[in-house]
């Protein structure tokens, strides 16, 4: 397969091997070392994409991350990835790319008709057309919005980017932390030098390079340049150092506080399928002490008519394709520059056999520079510029004219036949990462670019072209100084590489104008500022006329700089044009804010392994396997998995929980309550500590006793409830609800460590050390007496509110006489590691007592029947009084929240308070339903709400708990329960929330 534009020799590709790649199904050839872009250029493919708004044909413009046009879809099916830069996509065997934003193909695109409507698609077009006209069309505001919503999906479809695959990504992504002393970002001359000197100090160094090869700009020099030897020696020296790690294919995309950097390593993007269980991409969080910013500079396009046409290309990119990939996209070339850097391109092109016309906008250029290129046969026109590019699907000629310092035509135009226009309007240092840390770059009028301020960030040092330093030799010197932590001084460190690179010093005498127009001041054709978002110079002018003059307004009105490339090529041109229109100095116009990421980051790498079952960690109780083996349906309680119900036959949740709850009241049941928070509170002042934390008194709690407790927040609302058991003189075990375990522990630690530091107390979570089971029902005592040894469980020996130690199956356990269900009940606390043995022993012994397990749904039904409050009632907005617990509060001793709970709003009459609701009919209420008087109009938020709801087997009816204004004074009243979501209304009788055994005879017997 012939590649018509590949030179016969040269380049840094492996010509001994080749493989097929595909664009829209068309078979092309590539060598190892190629990018997709270089292979396409070698084959003469000119149109690779259609533009965002006008669907103009677009070709390859750059050779790196700044590429605005050549976005393709890479791979297909589940591995498909839209919006990939052809310039960054490393070619591999079978690479499969598709053009985007075009139908039926990028070469023939129906949407290109948009170009005919271009006058109507200027800045702000969508807003004006679709947000505005409603009022003129008589739609009114609502109509306008509807009109926009109707149009929006067509507009979005026509506006052009690729589509994400709708399939799950089959590949693996990793997240890794890395630690180093010096992070060097960029492996051009400055970066390599910095890594070398830093490595020699013994520091741990990471050198990150986004390309697949190290070398940066050195790779764009002709093969055999003197710099090649330096590159080879330096790379070898770095590879030999054990303390230096070189990460290629790794883009540092974000700079964050505390010297943390985000980077993505494209481990397998250059392969069809990742090998050997390797991830597709690896997300690095790099923590360093110092960083060296050696990210180089991005070349600036010139602004003239048709500057977006296939065949217009950045001059530096032309040099890269020529020297690195041995691709000469056309024989006749016009090189248009406003600075010295283009002269090296011109010389290399001429040496490769191209017919070159050099057009330099500057009238005054040193003779030596000009004669050096004239010697190799280049036609040089000083004080000239390209006014427009001619051609449709590719450039066929350039219109050139003499221009003044403002870029206006001053004489006759001339048409020069060419297939390639190489442009260089100056350079913009890649300050993005530096600026992400906060400081704004400053405008340097001499270098005609925004540069970072030296010393503004102590731990991130820009060097080389990123600092606006011209010249490879000086870049190396600065890199060496930064890597070695010395002051940046260039004088003594000059190397002899400079001599090899002609016109390499782009700083000298750079032209300040790179936008060219006819003598009337208008561009000759569409002159693009932002190619990726199709923003033209005239859009900037329009924004100015319409008052969007602040740089931030300009950006949003025209969308300049808001595409995927984030204005890498366009920002400076937009700023300069606005400065010109407003007659301001460039620093007065300012820059927009740089934010991460520098280049797009895949969602897969951000998610890492956190998807599907691994999205969130899961907590399992020590009895988890038993529940699964015994047919439990599980439910989520925060991070916990809990047994929800144990269906028999084909029971659903409703049948199962009703049966389970009824069984507990008639026989005996067992439920896993290991998820309860458990906190050891220990120390000589533990009793005093708990007495302050809980609203009810804990000071009087005796050894061997336990007590229900409720605690408030500082603001006076109820935080949580639970139990406190006094295990020893200075040793208490606190239980909390499952949901609040973390919050209660953190609050206790805060109080102990920051507020009451004089108290000698220590709090420790023992949730994971202790499993717990509640054994509840009339036969629980018989069952546990049979299975427990070493203690007496009789009512006399172990009354309510007491606990004892005992042995079950040879394991030491503690039995708390505490009931949540309202039945005679015990909580068995067992060491987590032995929990399964203890639980199984109770189950085995339980056969004789008709023991059955029950789940959280039945547990909830039992507690609602009993009128215990739980999470739905303790919702952070209820007081002790609201929950009917006012009597628990200590009268004379202060406790957490004791003052603010007396705030007027918290004690005012009419607050919704806890009631029971006996619901009429067969249908249960929805939690969250509103309460209205039976005959009251349904307006507003009602007089309260339903909090917890269940079918009560004990009462054989649907019941609920709720919060009702003045509830306790309204016993017996008939009330409406309104669910506005399902538009249903039920009626209920207001009763005490103690539906079942209010005297507590059953649980205390």
């Amino acid at each position: 397969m012939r590649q018509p534009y590949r030179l016969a020799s040269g380049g840094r590709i492996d010509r001994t091997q080749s493989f097929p790649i595909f664009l829209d199904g068309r078979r092309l050839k590539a060598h190892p070392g190629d990018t997709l872009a270089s292979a396409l250029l070698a084959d003469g493919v000119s149109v690779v994409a259609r533009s965002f708004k006008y669907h103009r044909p677009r070709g390859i413009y750059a050779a790196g991350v700044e590429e605005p046009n050549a976005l393709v879809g890479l791979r297909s099916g589940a591995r498909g990835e839209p919006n990939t830069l052809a310039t960054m996509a490393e070619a591999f065997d079978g690479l499969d790319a598709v053009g985007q934003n075009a139908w039926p193909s990028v070469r023939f695109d129906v949407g290109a008709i948009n170009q005919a409507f271009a006058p109507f698609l200027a800045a702000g077009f969508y807003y004006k057309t679709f947000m505005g006209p409603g009022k003129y069309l008589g739609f009114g505001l609502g109509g306008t919005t509807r009109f926009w919503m109707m149009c929006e999906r067509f507009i979005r479809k026509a506006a052009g980017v690729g589509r994400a695959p709708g399939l799950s990504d089959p590949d693996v992504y990793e997240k890794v932390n890395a630690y180093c002393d010096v992070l060097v970002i960029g492996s051009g001359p400055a970066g390599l030098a910095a890594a070398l000197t830093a490595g020699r100090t013994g520091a741990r160094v990471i050198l990150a390079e986004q390309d697949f090869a190290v070398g940066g700009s050195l790779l764009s020099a002709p093969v055999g340049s003197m710099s090649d030897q330096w590159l080879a020696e330096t790379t070898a020296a770095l590879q030999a150092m054990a303390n230096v790690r070189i990460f290629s294919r790794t883009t540092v995309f974000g700079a964050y506080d505390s010297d943390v950097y985000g980077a993505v390593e494209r481990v397998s993007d250059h392969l069809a399928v990742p090998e050997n269980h390797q991830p597709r991409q690896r997300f690095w969080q790099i923590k360093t002490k110092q960083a060296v910013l050696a990210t180089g500079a991005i070349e600036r396009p010139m602004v003239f008519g048709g500057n977006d046409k296939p065949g217009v290309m950045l001059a530096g990119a032309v040099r890269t394709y020529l020297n690195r990939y041995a691709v000469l996209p056309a024989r006749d070339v016009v090189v248009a520059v406003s600075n010295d850097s283009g002269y090296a391109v011109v010389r290399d092109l001429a040496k490769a056999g191209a017919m070159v016309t050099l057009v330099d906008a500057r009238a005054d250029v040193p003779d030596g520079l000009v004669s050096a290129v004239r010697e190799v046969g280049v036609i040089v026109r000083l004080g000239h510029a390209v006014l427009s590019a001619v051609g449709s699907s590719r450039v066929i000629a350039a219109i050139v004219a003499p221009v003044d310092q403002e870029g206006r035509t001053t004489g006759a135009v001339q048409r020069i036949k060419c297939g390639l226009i190489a442009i260089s309007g100056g350079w913009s240092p890649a300050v993005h990462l530096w600026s992400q840390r906060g400081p704004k770059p400053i405008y340097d009028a001499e270098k005609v670019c925004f540069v970072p301020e030296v010393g503004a960030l102590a731990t991130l040092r820009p060097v080389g072209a990123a600092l606006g330093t011209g010249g490879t030799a000086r870049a190396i010197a600065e890199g060496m100084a930064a890597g070695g932590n010395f002051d940046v001084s260039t004088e003594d460190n000059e190397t002899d590489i400079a001599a090899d690179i002609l016109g390499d010093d782009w700083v000298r005498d750079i032209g300040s104008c790179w936008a060219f127009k006819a003598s009337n001041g208008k561009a000759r054709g569409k002159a693009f500022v932002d190619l990726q978002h199709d923003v033209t110079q005239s859009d900037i002018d329009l924004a100015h006329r319409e008052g969007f003059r602040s740089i931030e307004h300009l950006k949003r009105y025209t969308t300049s700089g808001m595409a995927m490339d984030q204005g890498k090529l366009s920002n400076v041109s937009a700023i300069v044009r606005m400065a010109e229109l407003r007659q301001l100095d460039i620093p007065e116009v300012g820059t927009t804010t740089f934010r991460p990421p520098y280049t797009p980051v895949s969602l897969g790498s951000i998610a890492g392994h956190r998807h599907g079952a691994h999205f969130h960690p899961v907590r399992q109780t020590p009895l988890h396997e038993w529940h699964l083996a015994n047919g439990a349906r599980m439910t989520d309680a925060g991070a916990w998995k809990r047994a929800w119900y144990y269906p028999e036959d084909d029971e659903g949740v409703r049948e199962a929980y009703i049966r389970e709850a009824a069984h507990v009241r008639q026989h005996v049941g067992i439920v896993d309550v290991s998820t309860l928070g458990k906190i050891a509170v220990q120390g000589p002042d533990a009793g005093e500590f708990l007495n302050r934390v809980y609203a009810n008194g804990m000071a009087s709690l005796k050894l061997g006793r336990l007590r229900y407790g409720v605690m408030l927040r500082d603001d006076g609302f109820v935080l949580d409830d639970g139990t406190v058991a006094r295990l020893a003189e200075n040793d208490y075990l606190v239980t909390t609800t499952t949901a609040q375990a973390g919050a209660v522990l953190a609050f206790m630690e805060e109080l102990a460590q920051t507020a009451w530091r004089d108290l000698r107390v220590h709090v420790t979570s023992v949730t994971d050390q202790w499993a717990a089971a509640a054994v509840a029902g009339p036969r629980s005592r018989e069952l546990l007496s049979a299975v427990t040894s070493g203690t007496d469980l009789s009512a006399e020996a172990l009354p309510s509110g007491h606990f004892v130690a005992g042995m079950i199956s040879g394991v030491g356990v503690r039995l708390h006489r505490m009931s949540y269900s309202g039945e005679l009940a015990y909580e068995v606390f067992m060491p987590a590691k032995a929990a399964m043995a203890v639980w199984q022993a109770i189950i085995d012994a339980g056969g004789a007592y008709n023991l059955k397990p029950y789940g959280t749904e039945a547990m909830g039904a039992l507690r609602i029947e009993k009128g215990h409050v739980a999470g739905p009632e303790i919702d952070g907005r209820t007081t002790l009084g609201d929950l009917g617990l006012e009597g628990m509060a200590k009268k004379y001793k202060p406790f957490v929240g004791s003052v603010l709970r007396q705030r007027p709003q918290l004690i005012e009459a009419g607050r919704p308070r806890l009631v029971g609701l006996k619901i009429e009919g067969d249908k249960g209420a929805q939690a969250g339903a509103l309460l209205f008087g039976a005959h009251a109009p349904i307006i507003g938020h009602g007089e309260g709400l339903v909090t917890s709801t269940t079918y009560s087997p004990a009462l054989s009816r649907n019941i609920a708990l709720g919060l009702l204004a003045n509830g306790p004074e309204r016993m017996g009243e008939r009330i409406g329960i309104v669910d506005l979501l399902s538009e249903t209304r039920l009626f209920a009788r207001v009763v005490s929330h103690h539906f079942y055994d209010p005297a507590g005879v059953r649980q205390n017997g």
Partner: protein
Amino acid sequence: MLRLQCPVCGLRDETEFSYGGDATVQRPDMNETDLKVWHDFVFLRDNPRGAHLEYWHHVHGCRQWLVVERDTQSHEIGDARLAREVQG
């Protein structure tokens, strides 16, 4: 991403900690009964620019409450001490 120098565990990522609020605010004495004093303690906070003392709780580490110096403008992290050892 901030990194905090935990006196117990060393230099650790922000994600291991939870923010605990303004460490310059003094909690009233338990026996304080003035509603306004408690109100101000619970609800009123300054929004200072520059150097600041903050509580950070090392929840995924040693579980110690720390008093950390942080510059609210630059996010520069200074000294971090155990709250229980801070005078005042």
